[in-house]
């Protein structure tokens, strides 16, 4: 099935080493998300798996066979591109049929698969339109349809939602997750949006400058980030980091506390500061606190609405058991009494 193994994969563009030796295993049926800031090599890694880029050294094994030198079409993978890459002069039907036509599949089977995919993706009424006449979300679904009909061993998604507006993005996110549950096929999904990563993934691969910083389930990464980078990247709003004397009290070089893991009070608490901006979202409130003497700004997340406004004095108390401790190299330190 769709088990993908990367062994010591290296990619160089000229002198620049974009992907240093990298090992990764993606289990069959797993929804894996590559996440990282732009330029971290996540798209390159996906293109290496797809075969659109050649590896400089190392091996890519798909479903037990060495696919390193295989042509993209022979790897049994389907890809959904950021721009959707629909063929503008073909109707939706011909777009979806294209991979099957190239494979020389017989017409009856093509029609059956198109009908099935169109039904699943709500495209039945649009089959005879051209991509130019569709909305962004519909184009996205056509691109997915074109991938589905090939019945690939794995789907590759390259930032598929970045061209959609916020509301549509949430909807498509759910649709892709449901598709995964239904098909149970391996999916690799590239995004820079950690919310997408957290909500969709079975396994998240956090990348920075081509290196894998951490691999794990969304909650693993949230609870036990291996280093400062992962701690800062996963979770929204960002984790607060405090250096210096306050960190030394906990025997660490840096301590981190997530905004949702602090108690807030207007009368007493461990740390004191002044409210900068309070973002009222209704369900919860993000308070940006200045002048704490600990960090430039700190963010607190409070459930529901709180009566705190610009300039108010505020006291914060971190929940001791939720503190993350990092050493001078930025690596996570063992919990007191518990090995990391």
């Amino acid at each position, binding site marked *: 099935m769709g088990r993908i193994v990367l062994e010591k994969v290296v990619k160089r563009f000229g002198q620049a080493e974009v992907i240093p030796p990298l090992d990764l295993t993606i289990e069959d049926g797993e929804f894996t998300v590559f996440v990282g800031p732009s330029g971290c090599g996540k798209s390159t890694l996906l293109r290496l798996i797809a075969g*659109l880029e050649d590896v400089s050294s190392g091996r890519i094994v798909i479903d037990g066979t060495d696919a390193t030198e295989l042509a*993209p*079409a022979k790897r049994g*993978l389907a890809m959904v591109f950021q721009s959707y890459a629909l063929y*503008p*002069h073909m109707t939706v039907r011909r777009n979806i049929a294209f991979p099957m036509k190239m494979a020389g599949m017989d017409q009856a089977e093509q029609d059956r698969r198109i009908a099935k995919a169109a039904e699943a993706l709500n495209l039945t009424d649009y089959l005879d339109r051209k991509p130019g006449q569709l909305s962004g979300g519909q184009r996205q679904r056509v691109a997915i349809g074109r991938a589905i009909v090939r019945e690939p061993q794995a789907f590759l998604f390259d930032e598929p939602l970045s061209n959609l507006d916020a509301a549509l993005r949430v909807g498509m996110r759910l649709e892709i997750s449901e598709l995964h549950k239904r098909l149970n096929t391996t999916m690799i999904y590239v995004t820079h949006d950690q919310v997408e990563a957290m909500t969709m993934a079975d396994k998240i691969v956090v990348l920075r400058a081509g290196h894998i910083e951490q691999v794990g389930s969304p909650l693993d990464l949230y609870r036990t980030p291996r280093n400062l980078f992962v701690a800062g990247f996963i979770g929204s709003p960002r984790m607060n980091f405090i250096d210096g004397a306050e960190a030394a009290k906990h025997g660490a070089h840096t301590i981190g506390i997530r905004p949702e893991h602090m108690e807030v009070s207007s009368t007493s608490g461990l740390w004191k500061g002044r409210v900068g901006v309070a973002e009222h979202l209704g369900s919860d409130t993000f308070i940006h606190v200045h002048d704490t003497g600990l960090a430039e700004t700190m963010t607190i997340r409070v459930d529901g609405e709180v009566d705190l406004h610009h300039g108010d004095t505020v006291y914060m108390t971190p929940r001791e058991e939720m503190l993350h401790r990092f050493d001078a190299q930025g690596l996570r330190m063992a919990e007191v009494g518990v090995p990391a």
Partner: protein
Amino acid sequence: MATQHSRSAARLMMAPAVTLLLGWMLVPLAMTLYFSFKKYLPLRGGDLGWVGFENYVRFVTSSAFWPSIQTTLVIVGGVLVITTVLGVALALLLDQPMWGQGPVRILVIAPFFVMPTVSALVWKNMFMDPNYGLLADLWRAFGAEPVQWLSQASVPSIIMIVAWQWLPFATLILLTAIQSLDSEQLEAAEMDGAPSPKRFWYIILPHLGRAISVVILIQTIFLLGIFAEIFVTTGGAFGTKTLTYLIYQRVLESQNVGLGSAGGVYAIILANILAIFLMRIVGKNLDN
């Protein structure tokens, strides 16, 4: 209010240019129409009065008319086929990353900057001359008898010369069109299992459809009027007399302005018929 004012001001300011352009086109057109209904022989009595449609009838019934139409269409069609096919091929080649891309592109475009008369003379004397032309040398190098290009293969020779001039134009337009193709489409097609000939046929060629129709439209308009290449090389002999050349002969060699003007009106009609067809095709392509 402001838009009303600015609109009338804009009309006022455009008026001189529009008047000039209109006069530029209307005066010759009106004069052609005027002379086409007259018997006007400058060296044999001048204006000999109105003759109705006699010039039109004489022009069409002359034995040279239909062959000239045929020659015109063969030359235009031949050049169009060569320039679009080779233009697509050259554009594909020039799109590949290579060393010295900039200079090569400029060199490819260079023939377009050579004046028609000059390029025709260069072809006639340097390449096609049966005694000292380079092609003759080439033929002799293989032990063959040199071809008398401009008399034995006159129409193909002219097609070759004109195609050489217009190939850069086609290449340039098609190259920019190829460069505007989203590379993700090609990658998607590659993942969908299309090898490069199929990617060309299903993705690149349809993408070029619009550019190809623009190339054909513009070239047709200009190619209907080619004159210098024929004048300099064969002088209309050996079956290279196009409609334009026939009109020239009627007016200047036969000194019959009325007859030539009638031919000019036919040329206008022919050009318009072609233009309507082409506009339809291009319009259809632009819609998509």
